[in-house]
């Protein structure tokens, strides 16, 4: 059975695409046949972060409109052979997606034997975001540790509970995961940012992971290689942990504390 997982947030720029790429890649690296779908029609971001932007011929909208078949549109990842990307169109507008069309694509993907279907949602709470979350079995609610992002995540959680297919049909509710990204322990300590506990207290859903704010993320997206490959980096390791938890392994949270400064920097306040 294919599992449809939406990566959503409400607020823009919190790290949905970064997380979709890292987690999708992580699942594939563990041998699960995985596809990441870019629902951010008109912007096209995922293919850049995945480093496959020059191989896009047909896209998600082409498939839905019947202008290409699924096989033609899926881009096979160059690094892992269990990973595929279904890119968004840069030229169409958001209304190009229809529920029936998306449902058909998801069915066909399941038939192709995909175990995980990761939906990278656009920002906002309108049609595009609803379309991305509608068919979800699970949701990775991506949140930055600040008030406006937490509010938007709360709003999205409300929509998952009322506007998703599972909610509409009275099925078992969408399984919710909190992914706290761009976490900066130093700023949390200073009180400029909410802590993990603060956010969990407000959103009241289980935590999938805490991804620290890290220069490795920008480096990764510049090189078109998802940050999970950077196993030296804190962000890379944190995403790997999150993937483990997603498939049911127990993992303690890491990177919640400030890195201990060496004697030198402590003496000279570096």
């Amino acid at each position: 059975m294919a599992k449809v997982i939406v990566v959503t947030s409400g607020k823009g720029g919190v790290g949905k695409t970064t997380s979709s790429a890292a987690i999708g890649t992580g699942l594939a690296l563990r041998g699960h046949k995985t596809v990441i779908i870019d629902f951010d029609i008109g912007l096209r971001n995922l293919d850049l972060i995945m480093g496959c932007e020059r191989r896009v011929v047909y896209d998600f909208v082409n498939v839905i409109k019947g202008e290409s078949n699924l096989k033609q549109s899926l881009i096979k990842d160059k690094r892992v052979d269990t990973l595929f990307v279904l890119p968004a169109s840069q030229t169409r507008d958001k209304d190009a997606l229809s529920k029936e069309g998306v449902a058909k694509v998801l069915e066909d993907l399941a038939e192709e034997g995909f175990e995980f279907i990761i939906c990278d949602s656009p920002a906002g709470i309108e049609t595009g975001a609803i379309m991305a979350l509608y068919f979800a079995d699970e949701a990775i609610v991506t949140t930055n540790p600040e008030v406006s992002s937490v509010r938007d995540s709360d709003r999205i959680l409300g929509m998952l509970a009322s506007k998703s297919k599972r909610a509409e049909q009275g099925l078992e509710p969408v399984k919710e995961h909190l992914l706290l990204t761009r976490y900066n322990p130093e700023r949390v300590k200073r009180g400029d940012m909410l802590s993990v506990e603060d956010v969990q207290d407000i959103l009241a859903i289980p935590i999938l992971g805490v991804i620290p704010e890290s220069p490795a993320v920008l480096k990764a997206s510049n090189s078109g290689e998802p940050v999970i490959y950077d196993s030296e980096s804190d962000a890379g390791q944190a995403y790997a942990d999150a993937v483990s938890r997603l498939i049911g392994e127990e993992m303690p949270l890491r990177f919640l504390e400030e890195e201990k400064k060496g004697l030198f920097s402590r003496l000279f306040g570096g």
Partner: protein
Amino acid sequence: MSQPAIEFKGTNFTLSVIHLQNNDLDALNEKLMEKVAAAPSFFNCAPMVVNISKIETELDFDKLKQIIEDQDFVMVGVTGCRDKAQKISARAAGIAVMTSGADSKRAIEPQVKAPKAETRIEETKLVSPKRLATKVVHGQVRSGQQVYAKDTDLVVIGSVSNGAEVIADGDIHIYGTLRGRAIAGAQGEANSKIYCQQLQAELVSIAGNYMVDDQLKSMATGSQSISLEQDQLQFKALTITL
């Protein structure tokens, strides 16, 4: 036999009452603007009565009416007039002079506790609405969501988020943190209460008597039971000391 063209019947209404603290109408104007800004849809065209019992000096009734109506309230009348002269000036400005049930009862029977919240226009017993089963919400009430328990009480087993609204015609019980808005006694039941394990609300209201964020913060935090006593919200910690 022809029906009479009109019929006079006594009915009770629940009205929000503004308690004027002093003669500073500009300050009132500012306060009202704040309230409306904080909860625009909540007050839309709401009928208002102004209690002027605390006003010692002469009041500019025309200006008062203008201020209330400028904020899209409907000015129903004033209550708590001190003397005949005040009543006459109110009427001259086209404002009804009302006697609240609380006032008249107190005059006759000073020992008896005044009835709460509703400003009684007529002295008729309030017919209690039929009681339905309590409405229970399992889980969080999230930002952007609204829950209404019509003709009954509401129980939330979870927290109420900022930007969420829970409304009941009866009591509201929140087994979690109240961060959003809670409106109990929405049809005017002044005996309604609000209970919560953590009070961090944006607004609480009982039978139209409300308090918003800033005031609330200074009133109470922690687990609270909120009730209405003589048009004033009362906060009590939800702990029993033996």
